[in-house]
């Protein structure tokens, strides 16, 4: 029954997911796009912590300091995005509507595997544009798997292949800066990352974003003077919680600025 499929439905209504770029169009003919970022997801004791900085850049210009890169898709799934923000937001919106449409029309929620598959398809549909250097999106998807009672982190490549990454994952322009640090801490740190408590996990993602911001100009870190804090969301058995700016401010003061 293709009627159950929201993507097919909107195509039938003439709202194809994406318009394809003109033949011969390529990134060098277009102004640089906003795409620098650092996002990361880490498993801890009771779930997953997902964090992203809020800076949007075009070349060396900071376009926006309050971009939302960590999107709550439904009550069990969070998507964090690196890559073209326009495409990423569109994908987030499509995912959200697809899950809702499925739940209402089929009278049962879409399974976690089904949700992962939808995201795969969306990324693959975006491939032509990504190949031409326009609007590539590489998301991290974090979910709480009620059946297994555990947090899950998945990441994707440009072709839409889905990988489950066990304990941590980071993408974006600042990812290479912190990837090694995460590996080091997970292997030789005081405790494996997955055994951290909530406060330690918050401290870790905060420190990682600050580290990425230190060496990657496209990543904004904590900017307390301007009142800008990263976006951090926590997924656990109780659902999704957005960590408040007040709490992030306290974490910054007590555990990042002076530790």
């Amino acid at each position: 029954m293709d009627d159950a499929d929201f993507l097919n439905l909107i195509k039938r209504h003439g709202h194809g997911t994406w318009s394809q770029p003109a033949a011969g169009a390529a990134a060098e003919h277009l102004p640089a796009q906003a795409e620098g970022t650092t996002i990361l997801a880490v498993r801890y004791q009771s779930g997953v912590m997902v964090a992203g900085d809020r800076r949007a850049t075009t070349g060396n210009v900071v376009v926006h300091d309050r971009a939302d890169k960590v999107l709550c898709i439904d009550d069990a799934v969070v998507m964090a995005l690196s890559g073209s923000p326009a495409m990423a937001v569109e994908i987030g919106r499509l995912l959200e509507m697809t899950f809702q449409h499925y739940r209402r029309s089929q009278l049962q929620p879409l399974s976690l595997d089904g949700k992962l598959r939808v995201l795969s398809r969306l990324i693959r549909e975006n491939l032509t544009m990504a190949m031409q250097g326009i609007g590539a999106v590489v998301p991290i998807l974090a979910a709480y798997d009620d059946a297994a009672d555990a947090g899950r982190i998945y990441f994707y490549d440009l072709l839409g292949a889905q990988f489950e990454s066990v304990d941590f994952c980071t993408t974006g322009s600042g990812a290479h800066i912190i990837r090694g640090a995460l590996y080091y801490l997970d292997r030789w740190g005081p405790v494996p990352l997955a055994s951290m408590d909530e406060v330690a996990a918050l401290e870790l993602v905060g420190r990682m974003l600050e580290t990425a911001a230190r060496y990657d100009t496209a990543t904004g870190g904590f900017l307390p003077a301007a009142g800008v804090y990263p976006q951090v969301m926590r997924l656990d058995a109780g659902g999704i919680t957005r960590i408040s700016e007040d709490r992030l401010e306290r974490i910054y003061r007590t555990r990042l600025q002076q530790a």
Partner: protein
Amino acid sequence: MLAEPHRWVEAIRQRRAYIEDQLKDVSPVIGLPYTDGLLLVTTTPGPRKIFEVYDQLALAGVGHPADMEKVRRAAIDIAHVEAYNLSSADVTAYRLVASGIGPLMKTAFDEVVRSPFIARLMVAELGGVDDAPAFYTVEADGSFAPAERVAVVGGEAAAVNACREYVERRAASGSWSLDEAIQAALHAWGCGWLAAQGEIDPGEQRIISCLGRSLETARVEAVVLDRTLATTTKFRLLGGDELDRVTRRYTGGER
């Protein structure tokens, strides 16, 4: 034969009578306000009759379950395409009914070589734009009408009117808690059932014993659109416990 106008009129008349006959014995759906939003109540031997269309929209109906399902799926598709293209705020009951469900049912009704939808529907909307009505009712021929506070869709006109009058008479006395509203709706349902048997203005005791008998073979289905819910969707199917609390009175606490 359908090329002749009077034959067409004849055919339409026949299908009106046919639909009326098919819908004669249905159990009505009653929509009414309560303290935290809107409540929709009906009884059913099995299949569900009240559904979620969007965050603040519910669809309920009587008639053939397969026809109901077709309309339900169409309504959900329309609402979600609209929400994707524009925004959730642009999904409204009026537009869903006037440019979606109404024309869909009218088209099926007019094409006399195809089968019409054997269904009467109600769309409930929580907190519409300005003073939008809470309910719309849609007939099998696609005609629709707003209903400000209380809406009933069902079979025979006498039963439907008895239901509506019962709720309207009592709704004047102020706002109802959820339990009070469920009870009022069930009593209205009983009134309607008795009216279909030719019993007008039955006493409370009569209604209660009628409900006791009816609920032996059918279960109560009830949904709220609750503005106090923290989630974006305000639709909630009431659970067995919540209903038992009220229906115990009629069934002697056995269920």
